[in-house]
Structure formats: structure tokens, C-alpha cells
């Protein structure tokens, strides 16, 4: 299994509070991604990174920011959490070369009350 961890695994927070989710990899892969999973929508891309300090927006980026100061860490921040951001968040990684697969972390369940 790819070495990907996410922290925290579960979090309950109140509307309006800032929240940061962390994704950590031990594979030295170049690409990292944040997705959210909601019923009826599958997984949707929030932001992704193609290198240290190189990030870009995905399909559902409003209300989220990211940072990648080291190869191994990719942070997702909700500046002011809203109830619509209640979801399961997955981090994924992918390497360069011909192996295009993405490998996923275990997910973080975030509840905004």
C-alpha cells in the first residue's frame, strides 16, 4: 500500500471556524490531490499540486485553499467552515512516468455544525 496518511481522521467543528486537514506521503510522489466525496456525486477534485509550492484549482475549489511547502505534505484549509463543507475528504498521490494511477489516503470525515 502507498504510504499516505491523513489527519485528523474525524473532526467536528462549528460554522465559521478555520479547519486544516493534513495529507502526508512517504512515497516522494510529485502530484498530490484533495477530493471531497458526497452522496450522489462520487469524488470531486478540490485542489491539486504538481510540485512544491505549485498548486492549482479543481472543480469545487470555492471556500478552500491549499499549501505545499514540502514534497511530503499537502494541507487543505477551510478558512471559515460552512455546513455545505460537511463531507469526506480524500487525499491522493501520483508519481511521474508511465504509472498514472492515483493512490488514496484513508479519508477524513468532517462535520460542520
Amino acid at each position: 500500500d502507498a504510504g499516505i496518511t491523513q489527519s485528523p481522521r474525524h473532526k467536528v467543528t462549528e460554522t465559521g471556524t478555520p479547519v486544516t486537514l493534513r495529507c502526508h506521503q512517504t512515497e516522494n510522489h510529485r502530484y498530490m490531490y484533495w477530493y471531497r466525496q458526497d452522496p450522489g456525486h462520487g469524488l470531486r477534485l478540490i485542489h491539486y499540486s504538481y510540485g512544491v509550492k505549485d498548486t492549482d484549482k479543481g472543480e469545487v475549489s470555492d471556500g478552500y485553499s491549499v499549501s505545499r511547502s514540502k514534497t511530503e505534505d499537502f494541507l487543505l484549509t477551510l478558512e471559515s467552515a460552512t455546513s455545505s463543507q460537511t463531507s469526506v475528504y480524500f487525499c491522493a498521490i501520483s508519481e511521474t512516468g508511465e504509472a498514472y494511477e492515483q493512490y488514496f489516503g484513508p479519508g477524513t470525515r468532517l462535520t460542520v455544525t
Partner: protein
Amino acid sequence: AQTVTQSQPEMSVQEAETVTLSCTYDTSENNYYLFWYKQPPSRQMILVIRQEAYKQQNATENRFSVNFQKAAKSFSLKISDSQLGDTAMYFCAFMKGRGSARQLTFGSGTQLTVLP
């Protein structure tokens, strides 16, 4: 933009039988990859199989195989000799090819239940 459609929200199959999950996609790209991921109740996303669009031969991984019809933009997953452990949500996913940042676009999923 790419879209991926899974028109079967739920399916069931008897243990040891064969089942086929459907997936269609829409793209103007010629170079791309297609994937099936499995998500059991543990919530972990597990890669089942992948297909490169430039390959005509359908991919196979043990009991899992695909029927890739490029002209029809169809990518179905066949599971043979179904086992109870195959019970999971299955997602079809699309990825642009070389030169992209390899983002995945997912379908909405098919919940497969294998019945004893």
C-alpha cells in the same frame, strides 16, 4: 470538460455469478486513461483496473475485466465468480493523458451487493 456517467446506482448479484457495471464518458481528448476504483465499507479507495485509450486490448486483472469501446465511449467492468468481498461502491474514473496534471473525473458510483 470531461463527464463520466454511471447509470446504475445499485446492483446486486448472487455469489459466484457474473455481473457487469456500466460506465460511459464524454471527452474530446484522444489520449486518456480510464479506471475502476472500489470503495468497500472501510471507505478506502482501491484501484481495481486501468485501461489506456491507445490500447485496443481490454484490460484484465484476475476476476475483473473491462469492455472498452472507444468509439462508443463506453467502459464497463465485468466481475466474474463474484465473492462476498466484492460488495462495495464502484467508481468509474477518467484521466487526461500525457501533459495533464492527471486529475481524475469520477462517476457517481454503483453500489454492488453480492448476495450469499
